[in-house]
């Protein structure tokens, strides 16, 4: 009978924990949308070609709607249009404004970067050298976050001297931190741009006994990041709300298919703002996360 239900697919840009939270949102939406079959799809590689292939196949399999976190929205426009011509298309996470997608739901990475920049200004009143760590430095989300940070700290005594990439290999991610510690003894803050970068920074500094001496600013809500925030050794972290993307996005798509188009604004952009988590609100946040993931 499941085959009779309309399929709504959420195609993400690669496997990661982050999308687990979105999945929780999708699951919640599934509970409220019994007539739909909601699927979360992970392409086996974070490559545009692989993702495109996956969407082609989904269209072929008759999906009623697709919400996609495009790997490379700028250049995928044409293909997204092709998908949009055959089924309902939402974008999330990173927008493709020139495409014929119906709506975008997500946050703005530049804004998130700015939030992190503000946190750095607060944590390092006397300025200092910072080094960033990221999975794929060329990816749009990474670039925008880095841009946001740089824009905010411009003119201050804080300097982002380098951003090291690791191809999403955790061993290298950790090793990069170790190497930077060896190469730049005067580094005074480290920024983890991807969710797993911050815990790796935390662990290396902990092993080196440098916790507290070097400020850590993170993105996303890895449990170790949150633990570090709670402990006070991580200055803070900027989180997005993928749960909301998954939940609201799916509900909106279902409504749209059902004929109710009021949820989508004229420009089609629905921004779910990010949140700055520091010592003051970390307990609340952790509690709410727990509650969300439980369902």
């Amino acid at each position: 009978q499941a085959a009779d239900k309309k399929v709504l697919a959420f195609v993400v840009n690669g496997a990661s924990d982050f999308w687990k939270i979105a999945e929780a949102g999708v699951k919640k939406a599934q509970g409220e949308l019994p007539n739909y079959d909601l699927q979360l799809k992970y392409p086996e590689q974070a490559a545009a070609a692989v993702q495109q292939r996956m969407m082609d196949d989904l269209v072929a399999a008759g999906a009623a709607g697709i919400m996609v976190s495009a790997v490379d929205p700028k250049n995928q426009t044409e293909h997204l249009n092709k998908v949009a011509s055959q089924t309902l298309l939402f974008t999330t996470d990173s927008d493709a404004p020139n495409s014929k997608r119906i709506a975008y739901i997500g946050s703005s990475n530049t804004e998130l970067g700015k939030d992190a920049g503000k946190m750095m200004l607060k944590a390092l009143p006397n300025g200092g050298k910072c080094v960033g760590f990221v999975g794929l430095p060329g990816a749009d989300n990474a670039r925008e976050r880095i841009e946001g940070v740089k824009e905010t700290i411009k003119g201050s005594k804080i300097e982002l001297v380098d951003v090291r990439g690791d191809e999403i290999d955790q061993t290298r991610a950790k090793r990069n931190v170790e190497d930077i510690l060896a190469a730049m003894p005067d580094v005074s803050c480290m920024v983890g741009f991807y969710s797993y970068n911050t815990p790796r920074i935390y662990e290396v500094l902990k092993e080196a006994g440098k916790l507290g001496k070097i400020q850590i600013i993170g993105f996303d809500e890895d449990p170790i990041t949150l633990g570090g925030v709670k402990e006070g050794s991580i200055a803070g972290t900027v989180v997005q709300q993928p749960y909301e993307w998954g939940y609201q996005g799916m509900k909106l798509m279902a409504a749209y298919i059902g004929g109710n188009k009021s949820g989508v604004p004229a420009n089609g952009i629905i921004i779910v703002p990010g949140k700055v988590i520091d010592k003051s609100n970390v307990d609340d946040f952790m509690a709410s996360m727990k509650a969300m993931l439980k369902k």
Partner: protein
Amino acid sequence: MNKKDLSLLVLILVVGAVVAFINPRFLYVGNLSNTLNQVGMFGIFSIAEAFVIIIGGIELSVGSVIALLGVLFIDLIVNHDVNWVLALAMIIAAGLAIGAVHGTLVTKIGIQPFVVTLCGLLIYRGAARYYTEDATAGFGFGASFPMLEWLTAGRTNILGFPLPHSVIALFVIAVIAWVVLHRSVFGRYLYAVGKNEEAARYSGIRSGRVVIAAYVICGGLTAFAAILIAMYTRSISPAVHGSFYELYAIAAAVLGGCSLRGGEGSIVGVVLGTVLLQVLQNLVNLLGIPSSLNFAVMGTVILIGVLADQYLVQRRRRATTAKGVPQASGAGASVGASAE
């Protein structure tokens, strides 16, 4: 078509039938056309790889070359306004040059092919990333090269079936490669060098040149595939574009009967190997299998296929020997295979 190719074809048909039974959309024109398009692109560089494997070498830099040349191609026509015909010629020339360098390092300097092409894998990937500063290279919105696009990524309706041009290209290349490998003198030389380089040299074959030629062919075909793939994705993230494609290529070649020891393999087999790999990819998406299982399904089907094939071969052999009919040659094959 030899026996090995035949059993591969049977495996593809069985898998296809099962998928079609579960989800008839598998047979929809659009889906078949999409899958064929993938076969076209992947098949071309798998054939490229097969040439090198047949002479007993290996080419690991396929994926990186696809990334680097793809980036360069897009850069040439988008940012440098080079005429696309010229750009295409330049990229193919670059591919041939890369092949020539690899071949020369292998034969004249005597470095193991694995080492040469591993360095290639690393260097070309790095070069692509450095060149674009890790940014995605793409056409951007609205950029349009209608003729080029139609030629490389377009489809032509043939009896109502939108036949992707990539698969036409593959067909033409496969036919030529088949003639070259299986009918021409040069093909004989390729196999001879792969089987026993020493004996080939004693027979007056300039084995060095043959090896270089194989790498050059491989480089040129890979460059062509790089262009098709670039025109398909229309955007290239240099850090990941084409990564692992060398494994796809080697897997297709090996599935198609190539031995990594050299001297074996057929073009029909390589194309069928590519088809199998692509049908498996399609299957996962069509049957709604969790994408995390994509790889696992692919691996399992291949394994089952190979196991079934072996089982049948052994049963047939046992049956014939029991009947007193002289058994097939290569009695040592099943054991000897362990060293293959």
